[in-house]
């Protein structure tokens, strides 16, 4: 006997194309003109923030930085689909998510200046600290989702992971865990096509990364990750459907810039490929749409840029005026100060080790 025991498929959705044309059959009903303008503002803000961070790093005023340029729609669309109180677990490139969720920008800059104080994330942001080891944040996301289910908080958790991260055991283990317990988890793969120098094609032989969700028995979908409306819809639908278990969303986007400021993409990828993706820019298409509907003009653009640039400059100023307290590295190791650690601190202070 031979019979088919599993039959899966992955849908791909795009709602706004590269020219700003809308597929009205898929357009989310809850999304008004004001919302699209807000998405546009947030995406532009994220790009401005990114450019500023890059320039600070180049001037030696920030540590190694991971640019987000090109991935604004994936980050802003998903963050804006979350409800008040919903939670997110970032990797290390989700600056746009932090921004949309109201992260004070001076804290963002403080983190990228190399201070733990930048991770003192206000409760209302609903985010957890930047997580550097690729994929290792996903089991935490599953655990946070477990806690929401356990406490019946009604909150949904979104965990961000990159295309490279889907190769890690932690990724499989966490979506499997979430599937077994039907956790309120959305696993969002920010597929920017490159894990440093490794292209998506060398990361996995799977045709889509979304289909990895089949192995965990969870819902899957692939979206145009440069289409902020499609990303928004996918996340919104996953939230509405959360009673039926977790969803894995693969967002097809592109890392327009380097992996981090330590990386040189010219060693491993062609300018042609970058140019091809530049034509699919996530912000440009929204601007075209807004202008076509007379919701945007040069004057509004100029006002927005001016306001954003002022907000960024004042946040940088605040972050740069931060004075580190060396004792804080001792004060935050345990819930109490063990005698042995206190002795180390006293010795360091008494001997003026770090003048």
């Amino acid at each position: 006997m031979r019979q088919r025991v599993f039959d899966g498929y992955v849908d791909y959705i795009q709602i706004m194309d590269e020219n700003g044309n809308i597929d009205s059959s898929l357009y989310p009903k809850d999304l008004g003109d004001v919302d699209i303008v807000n998405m546009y503002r947030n995406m532009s803000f994220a790009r401005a923030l990114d450019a500023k961070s890059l320039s600070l790093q180049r001037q030696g005023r920030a540590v190694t930085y991971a640019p987000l340029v090109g991935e604004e729609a994936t980050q802003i669309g998903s963050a804006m689909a979350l409800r008040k109180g919903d939670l997110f677990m970032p990797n290390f490139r989700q600056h746009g998510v932090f921004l949309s969720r109201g992260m004070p920008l001076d804290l963002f800059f403080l983190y990228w200046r190399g201070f733990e104080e930048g991770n003192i994330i206000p409760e209302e942001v609903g985010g957890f600290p930047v997580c550097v080891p690729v994929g290792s944040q996903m089991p935490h996301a599953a655990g946070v989702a477990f806690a929401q289910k356990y406490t019946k908080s009604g909150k949904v958790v979104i965990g961000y992971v990159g295309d490279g991260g889907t190769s890690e055991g932690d990724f499989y283990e966490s979506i499997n865990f979430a599937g077994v317990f039907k956790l309120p988890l959305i696993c969002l793969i920010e597929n920017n096509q490159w894990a440093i120098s490794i292209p998506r094609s060398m990361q996995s032989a799977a045709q889509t990364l979304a289909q990895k969700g089949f192995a965990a028995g969870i819902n899957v979908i692939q979206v145009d990750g440069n289409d902020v409306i499609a990303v928004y819809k996918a996340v919104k639908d996953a939230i509405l459907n959360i009673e039926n278990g977790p969803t894995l969303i693969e967002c097809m986007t592109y890392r327009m810039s380097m992996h981090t400021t330590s990386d040189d993409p010219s060693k491993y990828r062609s300018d042609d490929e970058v140019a091809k993706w530049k034509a699919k820019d996530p912000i440009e298409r929204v601007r075209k749409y807004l202008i076509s509907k007379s919701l945007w003009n040069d004057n509004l653009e100029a006002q927005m840029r001016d306001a954003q640039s002022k907000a960024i400059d004042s946040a940088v100023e605040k972050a740069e005026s931060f004075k580190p307290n060396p004792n804080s590295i001792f004060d935050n190791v345990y819930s109490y100060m063990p005698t042995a650690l206190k002795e180390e601190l006293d010795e360091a202070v008494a001997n003026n080790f770090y003048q």
Partner: protein
Amino acid sequence: MNTNMVGALNNALDIIMSNNSNAVILGEDIGKDGGVFRVTDNLQSKFGANRVIDTPLAESAIIGASIGMAISGMLPIAEIQFAGFMYMGYDQIINHAARYRSRSRSKFTVPMIIRTPVSGGVRTLEHHSDSPEIYYSHVGGIIVVEPSNPYDAKGLLIRASKMKDPVIFLEPTKLYRLFKQEIPDDSYDVPIGKASLVEEGDKLSIITFGTMVPLVKSIVAKRHLSADIVDIRTINPLDTATIIESAKKTGRVVIVHEAQTSFGVGAEISARIAENAIFELQAPIVRVGSHSLPYPFPGYENYYIPNEIKISKAIDKVLSA
């Protein structure tokens, strides 16, 4: 050739790959990109993509698959991009690389090398500055090596490729390009399990390794001290004889490493000196390392790792006792 540590390691890998057709290099971004620190630069174009292998982003698979290759007669040389990411493959190292020989009474062996950059002082993001040598040394069956200069780096790596055991090869990021040295073009070995007496003196012994070696040398030079500087080079198995000989000669010992002091390699060295030479000591042994807390973000790292002041005060303490 006149080269820095990156060049020396690249040259050693080139020699190993040329001399052993069963050797492969595998890891993340080691092919076209040449590794994030360029240690494997140009090796893929020379040896081909089937021998210099860009892997998916999965440390446990890189290390576990290397074990599988090793028990099948190959010589895998894995690169883990940063030591802080190597914990993803820790299970494979401790449960399998370390135990395969023992569990099969040497029927199955794991000749492999895992290279990874270690230690800080270079303002990196979290998890890029760890000094994890003790985690791999506290289990028998694994060799742990850490060079502090281009000459040793090349010779130790070539020597590691001839061992029939798993070797964890720790490369201090800060020293990758800090200075150049004249080293032989040809293949040569630096023995594993043998410390190096970097400088000789008679007033005190400074036992150290890794990032701290150049710093200790500069302090000794600046203060015109007559000191033995012992660079242990191999952390496990430790060259106890060289350490004890120096301790007995000078009677005063300072141990310096970048990893945290408590439960560190210095504790082991100190214990061996105490066990073997305590009656010849003129002063209590002093250890200098980092504080007992996680490696902080770059804004605070200068308050964490040993610096000139801290090492110098330790030297004063031992000399004045």
